[in-house]
């Protein structure tokens, strides 16, 4: 699987997630063990109207989506892995009117559990938030074949 295939898979996957579409998430970069998604600035997701800073919930969704979609890059066979838990540390408010990126990587994978880390940052590299997560592997069979084919773009 090359990076183009990975990016196409992730794009098709996040296109099926209403909330990800609503936020306008797009794929920035994929590798075999990492994924970067972009959250554009939008006035609809402001959490503090005085400063125009977006709400942490939008960043949580960005990081959950990035960490959860990472499995499409890290696993040959598409499995949807439900989130078990997330721990988010906020480093600084995201600067308004600029996109936020989240880069996630798998740092340990077992038969049952996938451990991820994710960093949300803005242009210039300032960290906005860090997140560690665990995801449960429920196996490819947990999803209908038609849905898996839609995401992988071919027979599974």
């Amino acid at each position: 699987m090359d990076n183009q295939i990975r990016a196409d898979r992730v794009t098709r996957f996040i296109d099926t997630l209403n909330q990800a579409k609503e936020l306008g998430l797009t794929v920035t970069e994929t590798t075999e063990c990492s994924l970067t998604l972009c959250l554009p600035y939008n006035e609809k997701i402001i959490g503090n109207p005085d400063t125009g800073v977006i709400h942490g919930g939008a960043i949580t969704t960005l990081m959950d989506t990035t960490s959860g979609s990472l499995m499409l890059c890290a696993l040959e066979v598409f499995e949807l892995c439900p989130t078990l838990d997330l721990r988010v540390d906020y480093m600084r408010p995201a600067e308004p009117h600029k996109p936020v990126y989240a880069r996630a990587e798998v740092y340990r994978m077992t038969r049952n559990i996938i451990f991820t880390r994710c960093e949300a940052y803005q242009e210039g590299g300032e960290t906005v938030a860090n997140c560690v997560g665990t995801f449960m592997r429920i196996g490819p069979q947990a999803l209908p074949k038609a849905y898996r084919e839609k995401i992988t773009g071919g027979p599974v």
Partner: protein
Amino acid sequence: MTDPEILKYTRETGDFSRLINSVPYAKFIGLECDQFGDDLIFRLPAKDQNLGNPVLPAIHGGVIGGFMELSAAIYLMLAQETVRMPRIVNFSLDYLRAGLDRETYAECKLTRQGNRVANVMITAWQKSRSKPISTARAHFLLED
């Protein structure tokens, strides 16, 4: 949120609509809040745009997180005499069950309030309160 008048109005009337309308993200996910005596119950009515997993279908885990986080901030703001949105330090979230495409509720509890930091526990459920879909813990910074 610097409008003390809105906060005063909310405290006096128990009507959260003006407060919620002043926070764009609250409207974005559709958060609502009802007051019963001293207790606040936060509600997130079913909304197509909040879905993640299309197969179940289920609410996006991030939206559940955002709902709980914002509930905790509003709860804390009302519990104190502050007019500022409390600043979140961190947030730890356990997903216990899939959040199905139906109304979700959340309740907050101030576990500990120090001089500078508050610890808030949040529980979210759907059909039955005894079957939470998620529990979370958040730390907020109280000082400027």
